[in-house]
């Protein structure tokens, strides 16, 4: 009868559609790195460099004619029992000038912990012009019980930064990642 070819066509169509489904499920996961790559490439979403800039251009000149106000905002995430503040709330820098600032952290608990600071910068169009040559946010921050530390951050503003930018706010949120870093961290998270 004519049923056999119909059955075959049906199977083939189902197989094709299932492949599409699996691909689209994969696509959802592919969006994760894609999102990072696009944000990084276009310097959007307030992302600043997550790896230290090592080759500061030799011919970079300080733009003496203008200054940009860089403000620092710090915040400890929910359930993060550390004190965290910038030693200077804001600095005025010339584009092309290399500047060092310090942040102070203190572990208020009686236990050894590990923290991780995550930066975010506004306005977005300044993000790709804000270059960090050294930052505590590149690494995890282990801190002994009741320990205290001063953490440096060295940065410069690319002289090509748009003229419209005269204030930049760099915000750091400090997270508790003790359980993630310790062995069996996942298990600890489960039993909490």
């Amino acid at each position, binding site marked *: 009868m004519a049923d056999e070819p*119909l059955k075959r066509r049906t199977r083939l*169509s189902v197989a094709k559609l299932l492949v599409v489904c699996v691909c689209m*499920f994969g696509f959802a996961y592919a969006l994760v790195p894609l999102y990072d790559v696009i944000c990084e490439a276009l310097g959007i979403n307030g992302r600043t460099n997550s790896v230290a800039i090592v080759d500061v251009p030799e011919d970079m000149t300080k733009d003496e004619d203008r200054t940009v106000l860089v403000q620092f905002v710090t915040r400890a995430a929910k359930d993060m029992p550390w004190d965290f503040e910038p030693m200077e709330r804001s600095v005025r820098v010339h584009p092309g000038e290399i500047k060092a600032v310090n942040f102070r952290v203190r572990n208020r608990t009686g236990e050894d912990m590990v923290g991780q600071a995550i930066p975010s910068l506004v306005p977005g169009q300044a993000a790709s012009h804000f270059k960090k040559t050294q930052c505590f946010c590149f690494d995890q921050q282990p801190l002994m019980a009741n320990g205290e530390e001063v953490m440096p951050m060295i940065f410069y503003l690319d002289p090509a930064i748009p003229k419209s930018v005269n204030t930049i706010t760099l915000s750091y*949120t400090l*997270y508790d*990642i003790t359980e993630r870093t310790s062995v069996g*961290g996942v298990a600890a998270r489960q039993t909490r």
Partner: protein
Amino acid sequence: MADHHEHHAPTGWRRWLLSTNHKDIGSLYLWFSFAMFLVGGLLAMVIRAELMYPGMQVVDPDFFNQMTTTHGLIMVFGAVMPAFVGLANWMIPLMIGAPDMALPRMNNWSFWILPAAFSILIGSVLMSAFGPGNPPAPNFGWTFYAPLSTTYGPASTDFFILSVHLMGISSIMGAINVIVTVMNMRAPGMTMMKMPLFVWTWLITAFLLIAVMPVLAGAVTMMLTDRHFGTSFFDAAGGGDPVLFQHIFWFFGHPEVYIMILPAFGVVSAIIPTFARKPLFGYASMVYATASIALLSFVVWAHHMFTVGMPLAGMLFFMYMTMLISVPTGVKVFNWVATMWRGSLTFELPMKWALAFVILFTIGGLSGLMLSITPADFQYHDSYFVVAHFHYVLVSGAIFSMFAAVYYWLPKWSGVMYDKFWGEVHFWSSLISVNLLFFPMHFVGLAGMPRRYSDYALQFADYNWWISIGAFWFGISQLFLLWVLIKACFLKKGEKATDEVWEGAEGLEWTVPSPAPFHTFDTPPVVK
């Protein structure tokens, strides 16, 4: 020929549980979605009871949030989507001259997953409502944004995740079935460009479902692993980003809104020509408009998140793309109006619902156009204006088209004409109350009332009182439909329907007897 199948059909409850018949499964879907419509409506009544007066009277804010969340989820995944799948099951084989859906056993499975999925979701609401001390039901809004649903999600979020997975599997199986049926089982002579527009819109909807339901599944799986297995897709502490969640969600979410409206376009494109006694104006342009809406739906998702902070170029792109959608949509509205132009119009109930759809959906479309304008959206974002917008397109759009479809095809399904008096009461009562319910939301929204809060500033009090009256009225009006359906489907009372049912109706479904027999088109009809 047709008879020898009959004695294989199981009877009693086995007929329904083990059914592989597209008509029975269609009926199951339709009744299930109507039940979910009433349940979701009940939750909306709780919301409106709380918002009737300023201050807290009926529920506490956390329970209010659970109501808005589950109302949205049940209406989207439980009422609108299964209703259209039910309609597809019933009508697509009849419209293309096929004996059944291509994959009858999968069809059974895709329906029977749904009651399980919704038992899980509704179970978490019942546990929260009647078990003091139990964790709240999902309370993060139907969009379940991270970190509300990850870091801060209640324990019931895992029920929610499982339930969404099941709904997704069910929708994907339904969509595969529609595509395979339409592609392989059309009667001889039924070329693609001869298919009724309802079949076309469903075919395109099914492709949208195949494309985006797996993305939703991916999103909830990431949520699950973020919550329990130490990943950090949406957690900044581990290098993730909560904004990424919004991108993935709306990449699913925007095509999803067209999944809920394209079949409605198909229904209205079937009804208006019948009662205008003229062929549909611009059939080919309708097909192309539907396809362009579907394609554009993949490049507009970020208009739901203009305020998260996006580069100017991004905002402009998503704004222009969104505005572009109004062109094919405008083509459709134009074609419906042109179909009626100089037609011999009569206004039976299906036509009344279809006309209400065209007008009210257009209002919702226009407020959508306002929302697409980025700078204006900064003001409207997350306000009641948005609530007004999407309820105009979903309630007086998608759901009104469902009502139109039910009145249009009910005589074919049940064999008797619906009760005209109670049908009219249902229509006029719903039409007036739906506008009383949703129109003032534009005003309070523009005046600054935010959505998803259990309380509001005093100046919004009078409008909210009227909105709540409209809501209770609209809710009660649906009981008239329940009566109409019981009378036609179970009591079988009413004027006997002819095979053609409507004077001007065209299409293969009107060539089979009313009620449609258990098996139809065992021998394929010939389409000229």
